[in-house]
């Protein structure tokens, strides 16, 4: 008997964006209609902020500047370590400093289209409006953006746009923006507005009378489990790419905070929307712990190929020209090596699945610069790509000037996340979700240089303005420390810690994480089929069962125990993986990063089905063994007309 995949729940809708005024006026109008909190009352309110990346760090600093009491939590040793720091490329803003026809409307349009028409117009328009303020704010903080000789800011162009609107700080834009937010944060720490909790991980949400009122945390150094209460909770805890085990995310990045909020009632939206980047350094062995991104600008001059014959193990230099398959140039003569990210990624997977992949494990394709070096000279290639070639050489030990690079796609961003309305409030009143942790702005595919924009928009400008409407009724009645909801949540966390340490099985946490990652990568990665997803859905519950009966977790509960931290995160990844596969199976169309092999154009491109699938899938949690509940938010396009993306 086939169990039902999911149950159909009530539809869901955003009720906060004022749709009775034109889109360009909605954000101002919302700020006007939302209630405010007077400065004297702000001091009486406590806001819990989890995460210190671009979204969480910016929000904590800004809320403290406004006069609220902020309690900040993060799992690393310093708030400056959050993974926003690793973003390379840049941040978009509709400044039109180039006089090249850019505008708020154009950035809005590009982002909706880039998201393959699966995002909410109101949110995206607001993001485009705020983009210009972000640059102003960051410059005022001393972020050293690239400048021209005249002293004005430089811009570069990025994928999915015909204008130059990307601001950057060499290849370290994320670092510089995060340091800016971190410094604003530390300034508020000195001012006494932010209470800090480093090396502290959120392990549950406390919901009292239907409102998010606090969090249960574990001090990672002492193992102590405590509850922190307040008037509202803000999660800026990032994405869940590490469900794949190997990704470009930091090792600590995890889904635990949002997943546990989901289990307390926050809907999880579009979990299957993940983004896979085509040019990463491939896996070199079983010990591989993470993947490193190489800028996709390399595809401007590099030629992608694999041997024509399967299992051809000759070194690349010994493979004659007519025995090579430049498959992108062959299949896409118009765009060649510059096809969009999703196509380049999928085709690399296809040739490797055929057994023609190169390098260890056969999971790699060549990116060859021999022709470019001959045409342009080594000096020019060095000037253009020198730092990337050096990075490649340091990691692989190979010289990309004399032999082709090997590349392979890797997961690096998740568009899905907790469902939020226009105010960034989840389906639990008082729980707000910002940055990559929410689902809001990128639809089924995120454009380059948009993640930094969204994180800072949410943190500096949106949340601090929308949370006031909720807090206008605060401060709420104090929750006593022995309230049943607190006692129950704390006991649950304690019980889970003890359970992990008592299983004492034969497999390590990492071995489960690796197996899960491989499963999700194979069946819910670059290409998804009903058959494959069903296979994954058969295997994941088995893996979950084995994990809870056979995992071996080292150490004890009362000292710094990284293995125990990892166990809790993997437990949540296993549950999330199941929901991702259900979401991917239910969405019988291709859109953006979600490619269902059954739904493609004759040219092999993603084929959307707007009639049936122009909705956000917001999932309600149900206990193990019961199908989750799907709440659909219909997507309506008033300003951007639905159209099929085309790269021909």
């Amino acid at each position: 008997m086939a169990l039902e995949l999911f149950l159909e729940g009530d539809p869901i809708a955003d009720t906060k964006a004022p749709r009775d005024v034109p889109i360009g006026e909605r954000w101002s109008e919302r700020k006007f209609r939302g209630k405010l909190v007077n400065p004297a009352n702000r001091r009486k309110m406590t806001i819990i902020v989890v995460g210190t990346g671009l979204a969480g760090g910016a929000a904590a600093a800004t809320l403290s500047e406004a006069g609220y009491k902020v309690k900040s939590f993060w799992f690393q040793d310093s708030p400056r370590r959050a993974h926003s720091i690793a973003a390379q490329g840049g941040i978009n803003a509709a400044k039109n400093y180039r006089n090249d026809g850019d505008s708020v409307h154009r950035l809005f349009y590009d982002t909706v289209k880039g998201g393959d028409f699966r995002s909410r117009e109101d949110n995206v328009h607001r993001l485009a409006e705020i983009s210009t303020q972000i640059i102003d704010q960051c410059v005022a903080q001393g972020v050293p953006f690239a400048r021209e000789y005249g002293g004005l800011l430089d811009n570069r162009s990025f994928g999915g746009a015909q204008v130059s609107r990307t601001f950057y700080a060499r290849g370290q834009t994320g670092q510089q923006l995060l340091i800016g937010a971190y410094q604003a944060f530390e300034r508020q720490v000195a001012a006494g507005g932010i209470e800090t909790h480093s090396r502290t991980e959120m392990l549950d949400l406390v919901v009292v009378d239907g409102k998010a009122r606090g969090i249960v945390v574990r001090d990672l150094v002492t193992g102590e489990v405590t509850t922190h209460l307040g008037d509202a909770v803000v999660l800026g805890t990032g994405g869940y790419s590490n469900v794949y085990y190997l990704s470009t995310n930091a090792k600590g990045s995890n889904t635990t905070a949002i997943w546990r909020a989901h289990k307390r009632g926050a809907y999880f939206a579009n979990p299957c929307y993940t983004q896979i980047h085509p040019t990463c350094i491939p896996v070199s062995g079983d010990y591989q712990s993470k993947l490193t991104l190489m800028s996709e600008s390399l595809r401007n001059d590099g030629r992608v190929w694999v041997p024509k014959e399967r299992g051809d193990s000759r070194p690349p230099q010994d493979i004659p020209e007519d025995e090579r398959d430049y498959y992108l140039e062959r299949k896409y003569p118009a765009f060649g090596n510059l096809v969009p990210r999703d196509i380049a990624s999928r085709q690399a997977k296809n040739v490797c699945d055929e057994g023609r992949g190169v390098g260890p494990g056969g999971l790699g394709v060549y990116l060859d610069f021999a022709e470019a070096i001959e045409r342009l000279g080594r000096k020019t290639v060095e000037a253009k790509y020198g730092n990337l070639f050096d990075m490649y050489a340091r990691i692989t030990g190979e010289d990309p000037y004399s032999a082709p690079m090997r590349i392979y796609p890797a997961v690096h961003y998740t568009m899905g996340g907790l469902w939020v309305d226009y105010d960034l409030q989840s389906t639990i009143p008082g729980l707000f979700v910002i940055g990559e942790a929410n689902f809001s702005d990128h639809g089924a595919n995120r454009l380059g240089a948009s993640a930094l924009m969204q994180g800072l928009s949410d943190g500096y400008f949106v949340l601090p303005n929308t949370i006031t409407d909720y807090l206008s009724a605060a401060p709420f009645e104090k929750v006593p420390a022995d309230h049943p909801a607190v006692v129950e949540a704390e006991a649950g966390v304690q019980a889970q810690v003890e359970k992990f340490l008592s299983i004492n099985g034969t497999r390590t946490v990492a071995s489960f994480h690796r197996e899960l990652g491989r499963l999700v990568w194979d069946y819910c990665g670059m290409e998804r089929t009903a058959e494959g997803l069903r296979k994954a859905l058969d295997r994941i519950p088995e893996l979950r069962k084995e994990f809870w009966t056979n995992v071996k977790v080292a150490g004890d509960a009362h000292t710094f125990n990284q293995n125990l931290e990892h166990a809790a995160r993997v437990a949540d990844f296993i549950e999330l993986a199941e929901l991702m596969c259900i979401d991917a199976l239910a969405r019988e169309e291709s859109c953006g990063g979600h490619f269902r092999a059954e739904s493609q154009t004759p040219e092999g491109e993603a084929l959307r089905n707007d009639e049936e699938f122009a909705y956000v899938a917001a999932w309600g949690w149900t206990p193990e063994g019961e199908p989750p509940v799907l709440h659909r938010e219909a997507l309506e396009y008033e300003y951007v007309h639905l159209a099929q993306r085309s790269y021909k």
Partner: protein
Amino acid sequence: MTLRVWRQPSPQVKGKMANYHLTDVSPDMSFLEMLDVLNEQLILDGEDPIAFDHDCREGICGSCGLMINGIAHGPEQTTTCQLHMRSFSDGDTIDIEPWRSGGFPVVKDLVVDRSAFDRIISAGGFISAPTGTAPDAHATPVPKVDADAAFDAATCIGCGACVAACPNGSAMLFTAAKVTHLGLLPQGQPERDSRVVRMVAQQDAEDFGGCTNIGECSAVCPKGISMETISRLNHDLLGALRANAVPTS
């Protein structure tokens, strides 16, 4: 290969070096992946795995940092996560220790507490620009040379190798990098004097040693932060003290 690793269960307990043998180390492994492999073995053997800080594993978050054969971040001038086993030879014995400095107390094994760095930033390592107060980004042009030099100083990842390498355990390169970054920009001028005085005072209040311009810090800095930043800090500090512009709380 043989690893001699500092094991210390907690700050209260005295630590010691422990020996481990590891076979089948691939030259393509990163140094941290080699430790991952060792930890998997230790877990299966029922032993406590070795604690070490790490996160992004691409050289930018600043979490990782080990003394490897007595050198901060090991034989290449990069972060520990970007060091690969091909930098070592078959049969080598490698000493692995935590950052050693009074300012960085050990948490466990190879993990240290670097919160002193956050407190130094908190003391003045910022430009006061509350959200919403900013003029247009083009209102104040910044000469490219200044912007580039500020960027060079701003690339500091706060890993703490400078402190670990310094015979005095001084945090001067870290502090100087921030003073230089913000002090070179027009936006940073109003607080330039108070910033340097406060940051140096906080640095002294932590358990860091004084700077005697030895230069070990810059030699191991994965981002190559220059000693010039220290000259600049000293210049700014003297100027600020002479101007007596700020209380030195």
